[in-house]
């Protein structure tokens, strides 16, 4: 995957977040403070602007710029967390001009580690980690098993979606949903839902760009 691929991934996220904004905000209204959709929409709109203004020339550069922009523009819990995730992914990719699926898989693990370090959440705490961790695992597993990028991203996206849905019955232990105690159960975590959008965007980009998918009907 080249720089262009990562730029398109960011554009795809921007579009997905714009489309999902009100849904994310509604999820946040139920167990948080009704701003998650607006937060990410503001953030990724700024990412698109930043990428257009100062186009990076490496995949790592794209992700670091995206992460820094999220930190600068989002605020809230998700700003520093997603910002760190993208920055740490970008840093893991170094200066490489082209990135393999295996490299991206381990970058995703670096991003997850960044979120964990900063936010201290474990899996099962009903946060974005519940979507990001299974996604990173699924991607690594598929790549290890010899899957191509498209398969790896599809597996990651499916795992993220599943992880997000699986937050519904959980009782939150991190973030503001934790204030609700047992009442947080029964609702999907907005951050897990947005992670599913972000990883889903990766699948969408790969599917669209892959020669295999282009040859399909």
């Amino acid at each position, binding site marked *: 995957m080249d720089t262009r691929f990562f730029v398109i991934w960011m554009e795809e996220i921007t579009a997905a977040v714009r489309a999902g904004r009100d849904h994310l905000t509604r999820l946040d*209204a139920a167990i948080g403070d009704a701003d998650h959709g607006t*937060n990410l929409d503001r953030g990724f709109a700024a990412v698109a602007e930043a990428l257009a203004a100062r186009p990076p020339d490496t995949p790592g550069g794209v992700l670091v710029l995206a992460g820094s922009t999220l930190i600068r523009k989002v605020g809230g819990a998700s700003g*520093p967390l997603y910002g760190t995730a993208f920055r740490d992914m970008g840093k893991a990719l170094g200066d490489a001009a082209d990135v393999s699926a295996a490299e991206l898989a381990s970058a995703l693990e670096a991003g997850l580690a960044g979120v964990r370090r900063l936010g201290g959440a474990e899996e099962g705490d009903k946060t974005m980690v519940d979507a990001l961790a299974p996604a990173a695992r699924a991607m690594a597993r598929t790549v290890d098993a010899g899957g191509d990028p498209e398969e790896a991203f599809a597996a990651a996206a499916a795992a993220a979606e599943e992880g997000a849905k699986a937050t519904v019955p959980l009782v939150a232990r*991190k973030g*503001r949903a934790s204030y609700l105690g047992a*009442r947080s159960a029964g609702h999907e975590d907005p951050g897990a839902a947005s992670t599913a959008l972000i990883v889903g965007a990766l699948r969408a980009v790969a599917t669209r760009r892959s020669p295999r998918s282009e040859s399909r009907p």
Partner: protein
Amino acid sequence: MKKLINDVGSVVTDTLRGVAAAHPSLRVDIENKIIFRRDAPRPGKVGLVSGGGSGHEPLHGGYVGYGMLDAACPGEIFTSPVPDQIVRATTGVNGGAGVLHVVKNYTGDVLNFEMAAELSDDEGVEVARVLVDDDVAVRDSLYTAGRRGTGAAVFVEKIAGALAEAGAPLAEVVRVGREVNDRSRSFGVALSACTTPAAGRPTFELGEREIELGIGIHGEPGRTRAAHREARELVRIAMDAIDDDLPLSGETLVMVNGMGGTPLMELYIVFAEVAAYLKEKGATATRRLVGNHVTSLDMLGFSVTTCALTNELTRLWDAPVETPALRWGR
């Protein structure tokens, strides 16, 4: 949703334009969303910076001025400010004696202020933090993000601000700020949800006779839903929760705070019951605030915040203050 706004996207900026026009004692950096004391930085004085999501007015911008904050960083509605903004405020108020960040304990605020503190440190500004976490409705345990910071922010900002104004060094200002927080407890009750401009509808629905107990200040539901009842009973629930956590006794600073949509008349009715409750416990409300201080947009409801006073804290509370929302002695 009917609100007095121009556009959902410009709510925070338009508010800042109003603050700038209304208060010549402040210098408002509208582009970067920072409310400064006009005379900041004051050489040799510890600077105080606070911030948090918008929608809690007058917190924090209304507490910028002589004897209290040097700058406030309002984020978007219910969204903590971003690191750049906080760094700019921090360097902007640094008079060489270091800067105190007063941070309410929410993941977003904590992370963004932490990042800002690191970046400010890189720029050679000494930064210390007082974390405000007074809300007894939330258990401080492994299973939560810890207690929320609510009404005690006003107490910390006033009292630490007075000490900073008196020329105390950063370590002292931090010490007294932490002491205020340790001695403070809050509990809130909502009669309605609030409506964020972006969502356009109430964050939750309450029946005609339902209320939420143990709410925070971000429109989130409380710990439990309950039946509405008379003010006296509601106050008993709130005060019992506070007293269970830190038994009330002696001289107490008390704030009865409105959530934004509750008229002053009702807050006085609540205050009468709070004062009666304290008396029952052998405590006295020696210092008092009644009004809208830490709000949740248009939410109906109230919170009570108490702080067990010491002579030092009382003296610092009484020290002159001159801000849009709190003013005496000048």
